[in-house]
């Protein structure tokens, strides 16, 4: 906030013609940028393709951006307050209108785009307005990183709240399926399962990335190993979920060590790229290994979990009872969903509990020390090889557990589910949450997975929003949403720090 105030103070006020010129240049750049891909569209009809123009949409988008840029200049020229009020009322009002009376599909994209632009202007205007108000009150804040200290405060606050509200969240998570059961909202339980799967993956990767500081872009490989281990063991050998779970974890952990060995010497971006390559190699092997992994078709008919031997099925084979019969209930597919939900909740909580505990053990301390400075660690007698390998192995193990769960939940797996995008999503969750922060992972998962899931109807735009959100959150808070575990002083940060001054 303070940084913004300084910025506005430093910037000389523009005259109106200069503002128009500025906005025109902006619009011209936007026009050129959007011209080829938005202005033209390659259509195919049968074997012939032809080109179609969409200049109407193009001009509309550019016009909106021109006005927005003009408004941004006016905000800096001292009109923050009226603009904040008008755009704020417009963007909030439109949400109400849209909720009451949904727009026609063919206008949806235009209206959403316009709304996004108006809302951005509103947020910007509001921020500037507040900064001006603070400055007018004569408050002098710290010189550098006013925003950062602000963020750290939020971090501390959430961490404190997390400790106290943790049990409340836990209770909500515990009773949520029952609420969904009585409200007959199957989607809610599904969403809960999905979110907890990603929370668990995030917590697992947090050991590798957040604690040990090893950037892993191929985490999905361990997820795949766990899933395929369970699928093969259950389909071919007839073992059940709980029997296979340790095997899957062990298998994934060995793959973690396997990956760990060649990359011990690498750091930073190189490590990220090699792990990415490793993830792709695993996927390609699964794709081509027809005998064991079923190739591109994957493995189907994977047994669903049973409730201590009781099947979730409309009717049981003779000699067995179903869950519904045993408890004298009417059969409902809901029961299995709820049971799956509790399994993943349990697995995720085990992951969290383990991480919190291990953090206080020597190995956990060694991870964090390694993250901060590898050379210093060596000097202090910490063995980096063992430390890194345990981090990879333990992180991979949790990935394997989650993979087994994924296999039993889906009942069908194929290499398609384990592509790079999944790795990127999991890493994004950890980094956006603020590396090493457990509650940050939860918040980032809800924002990144729950948010776009909410807009299921706009299927096409979901991943677009996801990518955009990753960029925006990083720009807004480069240290992650809750970065209270970041060190306050770094040795290598000298360059960056010096520039900020």
């Amino acid at each position, binding site marked *: 906030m303070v940084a913004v105030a300084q910025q506005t103070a430093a910037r000389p006020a523009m005259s109106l013609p200069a503002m128009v010129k500025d906005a025109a240049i902006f619009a011209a750049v936007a026009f050129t*940028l959007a011209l080829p891909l938005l202005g033209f*569209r390659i259509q195919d009809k049968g074997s012939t*393709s032809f080109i179609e123009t969409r200049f109407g949409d193009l001009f509309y988008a550019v016009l909106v951006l021109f006005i927005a840029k003009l408004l941004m200049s006016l905000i800096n020229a001292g009109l923050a307050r009226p603009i904040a009020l008008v755009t704020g009322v417009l963007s909030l009002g439109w949400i109400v209108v849209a909720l009451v009376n949904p727009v026609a599909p063919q206008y949806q994209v235009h209206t959403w785009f316009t709304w996004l632009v108006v809302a951005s202007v509103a947020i910007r205007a509001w921020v500037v307005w507040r900064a001006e108000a603070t400055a007018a009150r004569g408050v002098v804040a710290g010189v550098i990183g006013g925003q950062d200290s602000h963020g750290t405060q939020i971090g501390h606050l959430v961490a404190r709240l997390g400790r106290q509200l943790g049990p409340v969240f836990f209770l909500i998570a515990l009773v949520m399926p029952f609420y969904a059961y009585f409200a007959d909202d199957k989607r809610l339980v599904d969403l809960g399962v999905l979110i907890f799967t990603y929370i668990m993956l995030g917590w697992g990767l947090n050991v590798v990335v957040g604690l040990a500081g090893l950037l892993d872009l191929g985490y999905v490989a361990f997820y795949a190993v766990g899933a395929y281990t369970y699928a093969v063991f259950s389909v071919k050998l007839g073992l059940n979920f709980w029997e296979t779970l340790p095997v899957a974890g062990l298998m994934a952990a060995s793959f973690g060590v396997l990956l760990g060995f060649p990359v011990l010497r690498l750091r930073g971006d190189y490590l990220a790229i090699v792990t990415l390559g*490793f993830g792709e190699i695993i996927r*390609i092997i699964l794709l081509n290994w027809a005998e064991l992994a079923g190739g591109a078709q994957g493995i189907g008919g994977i047994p669903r979990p049973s409730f201590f031997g009781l099947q979730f099925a409309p009717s049981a084979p003779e000699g067995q009872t179903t869950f519904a019969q045993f408890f004298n209930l009417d059969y409902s597919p809901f029961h299995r969903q709820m049971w799956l939900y509790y399994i993943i909740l349990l697995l995720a909580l085990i992951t969290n509990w383990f991480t919190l505990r291990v953090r206080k053990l020597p190995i956990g301390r060694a991870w964090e020390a390694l993250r901060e400075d590898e050379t210093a660690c060596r000097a202090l007698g910490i063995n980096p090889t063992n430390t890194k390998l345990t981090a990879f192995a333990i992180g991979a193990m949790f990935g394997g557990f989650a993979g087994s769960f994924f296999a039993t939940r889906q009942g069908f797996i194929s290499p398609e589910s384990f592509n790079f995008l999944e790795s990127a999503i999991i890493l994004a969750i950890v980094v956006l949450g603020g590396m090493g922060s457990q509650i940050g992972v939860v918040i980032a998962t809800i924002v990144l997975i729950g948010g776009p899931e909410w807009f299921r109807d706009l299927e096409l735009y979901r991943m677009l929003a996801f990518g955009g959100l990753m960029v925006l959150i990083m720009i807004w808070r480069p240290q992650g949403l809750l970065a209270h575990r970041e060190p306050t002083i770094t040795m290598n940060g000298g*360059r960056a720090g*010096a520039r900020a001054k």
Partner: protein
Amino acid sequence: MAYFLQQLINGLTLGSIFGLIAIGYTMVYGIIGMVNFAHGDIFMIGGFVTLIAFMVLGLSGITWVPLALLLMLVIAMAFTALHGWAVERLAYRPLRSSGRLAPLISAIGMSIFLQNYVQIMQGARNKAVGQPLISGGITVMESDGFTVQLGYMQIVIVVLTVVLMVGFTLLITGTALGRNQRACEQDMRMARLLGVDVDRTISLTFVMGAALAAVAGMVWLLYYGIIDFYVGFLAGIKAFSAAVLGGIGSLPGAMLGGLLIGLIEVFWSAYFSAEYKDVAAFAVLVLALVFRPTGLLGKPEIEKV
């Protein structure tokens, strides 16, 4: 022998394309030390812009092949370079002083964004060039009923790459811009103190990388005749492997690495298995990093404590 020669020709062609993309990675890594994850998608956008230019040119009646090629090249380079510039301006510049992880995540986000942007704008299906722009070729040799073909398109690709490489090397070694760029690579703060406009230099680096990627995209489209929104991911990773193999930060290294990766991939699929050709590229990357992290032509990175 004939089979081997044919694979060599194909490998050099593919390697040229990877080399052109790899230069963008290596330059950006050299100057700001980040992996520009979205570079593969910039390459993909280059291919799409070329295809659109091709169709618009077809509509406007420009069918003389050399002129059409030249116009497509200029249009693709210009628009793609603008995309490269915009990506740097929006997603990387605000993060320049915040560690290494934040720009990487931002770049991954940008990559996802660009892929989906193109998918929404142009559709998810493959887009094909109706008829090949340049067809035919020279029969180099014939033995045992196997003909070695050197396509005209392959000649165009290799010649274009060589010309661009020479021009580019002259640009980096001989002009004020190249000097600024090398200065920023060595020490950004010192360069700034000596009056180099660092922001402008970095922007231009992205613009140049994107322009070369656009050429690669165009060549890819004309060579394979087909493109989709996802093509940038694999090509990008392979080009990055090429940059690492050649020694990141080194321009001749990027070209050499590109050629090697192209040859390895083609020979691997010719003699071992086509299904595992992508594994070959990744395996080379891993081996290169494990045994020679500085790459073939790279300078060793000395870590000061």
